[in-house]
């Protein structure tokens, strides 16, 4: 049996985040930390769907939202425990994600058309949520039922929700580290570098791409539900197309197809967004300018640049 790999820098990163509430314990800081952990998971999902299997999904917000709404609506209307309804939400999102992926591969849509179809899907989701006012409360937003977070009786709800969400992000990160080395990860790499050769060798492109999209959707779905229960309410404004942009920005800034990119990207951008909150709509401008600069100048991202610099330092250290 293959040994499960646990990369050390990742552990250190998460240990730091686990220790941070000792220093920043006020609710505002704790909220920011939780949002970083939520976005880290989102960005790992994007890294799998967009990075590893090169399907330009611009419906990540909708996939997260579908799960959050399904779970909250079921729990509200049947009085069920949210932990029971979360799997239903996941199932719904995963089937939608898998269907979008399957259709676009079978129809041979290029990346650009996948982007348009999924963006259109996000708009459909937004309008359906706005329109089904009796079910979703429309624009005002739906108050989510209270989720029991593990150990909340001892630590309080804020701390308990933070650690649950952080633990999930840690598991996702570990999963990604092993995913890229698995049979699936290698197959996706082959498809990425030369799709036709991969097909000739006998790699089932459709199957592996749909699996990658499903895994990504599942991560988005779980994180989306957690986000909803942590936030106390969900609205179309939260799961809007700009969430996709933020996720992609984090992925590009941190580094596409890297293990640490999602952690670096989500931390940097959440902090940036929080610190520029006073500028109101100008925040959009900052995001826009960053996107332009990032995509034109360094598409490798911070993580791989840091890795190269680190390798240079250590290799020169060996020589001397």
């Amino acid at each position, binding site marked *: 049996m293959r040994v499960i790999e646990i990369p050390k820098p990742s552990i250190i990163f998460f240990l730091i985040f686990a220790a941070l509430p000792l220093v920043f314990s006020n609710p505002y800081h704790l909220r920011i930390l939780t949002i970083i952990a939520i976005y880290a998971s989102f960005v790992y999902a994007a890294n799998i769907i967009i990075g590893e299997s090169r399907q*330009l999904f611009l419906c990540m917000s909708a996939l997260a939202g579908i799960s959050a709404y399904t779970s909250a609506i079921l729990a509200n209307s049947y009085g069920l425990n949210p932990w029971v309804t979360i799997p239903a939400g996941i199932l719904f999102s995963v089937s939608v994600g898998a269907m979008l992926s399957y*259709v676009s591969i079978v*129809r*041979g*849509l*290029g*990346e*650009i*058309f996948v*982007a*348009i*179809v999924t*963006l*259109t*899907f996000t*708009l*459909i989701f937004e*309008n*359906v949520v*706005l*329109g089904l006012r009796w079910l979703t409360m429309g624009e005002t937003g739906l108050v989510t039922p209270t989720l029991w977070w593990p150990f909340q009786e001892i630590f309080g709800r804020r701390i308990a929700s933070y650690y649950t969400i952080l633990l999930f992000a840690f598991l996702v990160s570990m999963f990604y580290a092993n995913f890229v080395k698995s049979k699936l990860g290698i197959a996706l790499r082959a498809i990425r570098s030369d799709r036709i050769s991969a097909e000739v060798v006998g790699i089932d492109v459709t199957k592996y791409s749909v699996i990658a999209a499903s895994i990504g959707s599942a991560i988005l779905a779980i994180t989306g539900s957690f986000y909803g229960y942590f936030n106390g309410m969900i609205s179309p404004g939260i799961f809007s*197309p*700009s969430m996709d*942009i933020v996720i*992609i920005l984090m992925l590009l800034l941190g580094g596409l197809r890297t293990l640490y990119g999602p952690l670096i990207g989500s931390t940097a951008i959440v902090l940036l967004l929080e610190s520029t909150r006073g*500028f*109101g*709509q*100008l*925040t*959009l*401008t*900052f*995001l*826009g*300018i*960053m*996107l*332009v600069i990032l*995509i*034109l100048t360094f598409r490798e991202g911070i993580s791989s640049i840091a890795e190269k610099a680190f390798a240079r330092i250590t290799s020169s250290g060996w020589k001397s």
Partner: protein
Amino acid sequence: MTIDIASIAISELVEVLIDGILFGLQLSLLAVGLVLIFGLGGILNLAHGEFVIVTGVISAVLISSGWNPAAAIVIGILFSGILALALDRSVLRPVYKLEGEMEVLVGLFVTLGLAFTLEGITSYLFPGLYFSVRVPVETVSIFGLSFRASALVSGLISFLSLLFLLLFLGKTMTGKAIRAALQNQIGSRVCGIDVDRMRSLVFFLGGLMAGLAALAKGIASSVEPGSGLELTSYALIVGVVGGVRSVYGAMIAGILLGIVNALAGYLLGTYLTLVILLVIVVAVIIYKPSGLFAGGV
């Protein structure tokens, strides 16, 4: 009695249809700029809706500071054209050096970034501002059917703008050169057409069309900062249904979707209308990715 009811229903249906066509002309005008730029620039310009907003904002600001409305609107439209030209000459330059799918992808993200930049600036600087042109007459009745005068004027302006574009592309030498470059870039280079200059010209034209779309929309309803991405998605819908590289396709698709929009709104209510339009787009992309009316330029 029954005949009466039927005739009322039919006249109402005709009104709805004509309303749809008028709105469709607006959609066509919104989409042609996007399609032109994609056809020659290879860039799916997600900042297209922002060009509309920019014209609206500039005109509204100039009008409120005491300018003659006509002059203000002309300046606003020209400004959008120049802005498009400036983007083509600056940030988009590095994108053209890339090839194939990569060019399209990088172009998509760069223009998305530009859209966010412009959306942020316009809604930060001018919150609550809106551009709207009032038509003195409320309703006009023709053959016993009544129409909103503003919709008629807006439709007329859209029609004239589209006609101007068609004549320019069809009759002038430069227009023919643009069409040649749209069909085959390498071939037209061989024939001595400066494709880079044509591309800049197309960006300028695309910006002008967006500016004219702002005028048409300002007459029919209003243009306000913050709705740029929504306008872009409308243009994208029309463009995709028409075939993203075809100007004629975009015109026909715009009118068709305008009619669908009006009928769906009349029969099913406004909320489902947009969903129906979006579902049509998804269906078209899946069954015919090249668009319904792809073919001619």
